[in-house]
């Protein structure tokens, strides 16, 4: 095929400029900055790997942030995907008015990261808020969800589960790809619904589950907006909502420790890469693509 180098690079020009100026150059300089002390006013001061050393050895808030974020990912993501899959299976059984229900279930996911929803959640779990008012009906006096460090994280987990809509839509699209005759053939052979789910639905849906898992895990690590609003901007109570990105924001834009914040960003990149690599590595044992068979 004839090459159209000149024209193609004209079309690519905006992206190329952006790619070098806003991605490549920043990646390189962020790594360099992570080896310095830098407050944006005076010049960066090279300190080698001291930021990383301090982070891993002395910074207990870094470990706190990791703990909070890992717990959130480990609990939030499976529940969210489980919900998304369950509701998708339910909706996939041929319901009239599917598009209406689908839209309703998707709506929280769409509004999800807005500040308005953060504000709402703060009131819903307020000591005198909606949830405790409902509990009072049942004769239970609810805790102060958001000021108790033992319960605060669960409000955020509930918020992320409430937003199961977008993985649900992806599951629905995946379920639609599964040929109907597989179910018909197997039910003639006397397979139970449960067996069909394990032997047909799950294996054929594996690529979609994999896709959702990767996407949602990365997203969960990057959670910021809602937590910022719910925790009043500082991860309180007692750092129980100190999500990783929130800590990074504090270091960079409240304490202006740009070098240290860059080091935090690099550690986040490495954590996310490790997770993604593990998923991809293990996927060959549980994800089969149609074309490989």
């Amino acid at each position: 095929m004839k090459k159209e180098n000149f024209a193609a690079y004209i079309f690519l020009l905006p992206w190329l400029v952006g790619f070098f100026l806003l991605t490549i150059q920043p990646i390189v300089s962020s790594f360099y900055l992570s080896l310095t002390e830098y407050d944006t006013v005076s010049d960066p001061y090279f300190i080698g790997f001291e930021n990383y050393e301090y982070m891993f050895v002395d910074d207990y808030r870094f470990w706190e942030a990791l703990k909070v974020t890992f717990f959130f990912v480990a609990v939030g993501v499976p529940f969210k995907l489980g919900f998304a899959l369950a509701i998708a299976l339910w909706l996939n059984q041929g319901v009239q008015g599917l598009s209406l229900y689908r839209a309703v279930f998707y709506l929280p996911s769409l509004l999800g990261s807005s500040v308005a929803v953060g504000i709402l959640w703060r009131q819903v779990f307020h000591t005198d808020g909606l949830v405790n008012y409902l509990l009072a009906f049942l004769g239970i006096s609810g805790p102060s969800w958001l000021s108790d460090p033992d319960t605060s994280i669960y409000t955020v987990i509930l918020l992320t589960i409430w937003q199961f809509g977008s993985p649900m839509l992806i599951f629905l699209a995946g379920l639609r790809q599964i040929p109907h005759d597989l179910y018909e053939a197997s039910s003639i052979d006397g397979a139970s619904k449960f067996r069909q789910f394990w032997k047909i639905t799950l294996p054929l849906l594996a690529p979609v589950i994999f896709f959702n898992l990767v996407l949602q895990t990365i997203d969960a690590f990057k959670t910021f907006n809602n937590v910022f609003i719910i925790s009043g901007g500082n991860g309180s109570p007692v750092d129980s909502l100190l999500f990783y990105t929130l800590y990074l924001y504090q270091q960079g834009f409240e304490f202006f420790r740009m070098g240290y914040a860059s080091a935090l960003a690099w550690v986040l990149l490495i954590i996310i890469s490790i997770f993604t690599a593990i998923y991809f590595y293990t996927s060959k044992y549980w994800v089969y693509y149609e074309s490989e068979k």
Partner: protein
Amino acid sequence: MKQNRLLKHLYLAIASLVMLYPLLWMLSSSFKPESIIFNDLSLWPSQFTFENYPNGWQALRIDFSIFYKNSAIVAVFSVIGNLISCAFTAYAFARLEFNFKRFWFALMMMTLMLPYHVVLIPQYILFLKLGWVNTYYPLIVPKFLAQEAFFIFLMVQFFKQLPRELDESAMMDGCSVFRIFFKIIVPLSIPAFGTAAIFSFYWTWEDFFGPLIYLNDIEKYTVPLALRAFVSAEDLSFYGESFAMSILSLIPVFIFFIIFQRFIIHGIAMSGIKG
């Protein structure tokens, strides 16, 4: 059988109500007087007031019309920038042959996975040195440089589906690739542009992190930043007013959702864009 169907609708209706209850509660609370908000679970206010809206609109030093104007400026330019620059890039990747194409494409796809935080601080420093902090440039200019790889990917997928013969016959007639892009590809790709425009609008309308970092003066705040000011002052019992302003901020999102539902749901199913 029929009973079964009814039962299923009943369950689905209950599930829908549970999902929407918090939002509906916020909506109805925005019409309740301050004193009864937390003593009234019903979705229909027992006492009805409109006051939260005008009061909330003017609760901060600057009134909300300014914040909406600011948000609209950022959103409009972001959508335009994203559409133009991503369409250009996608066209090159989808329809043209050039040296190092696979290399660039792989790099572009890798940026999809890259957490924003790694480039955040050097970008901030760059914009700081350009004197762009506390202006809208850091929020808008990157959009003209095709930095949302999701939209590029979405458009590449769409452009690839368009029949090649169109380009080839136009080429025979002596059309340049530029003419082909503007006269053939663009008019046929309205659905893809629609999906990209809607998501681009959502992301900028709801964007909180960007404005939080780059905008300092309250005169320049976008709507989400202004809402956050309510939270800071919150224990002074502004609930009704903050609910009213929150509801208002969701209305554009909601209206777009009603109108463009098909685009949105199709777009997510196709590309896995997050909501």
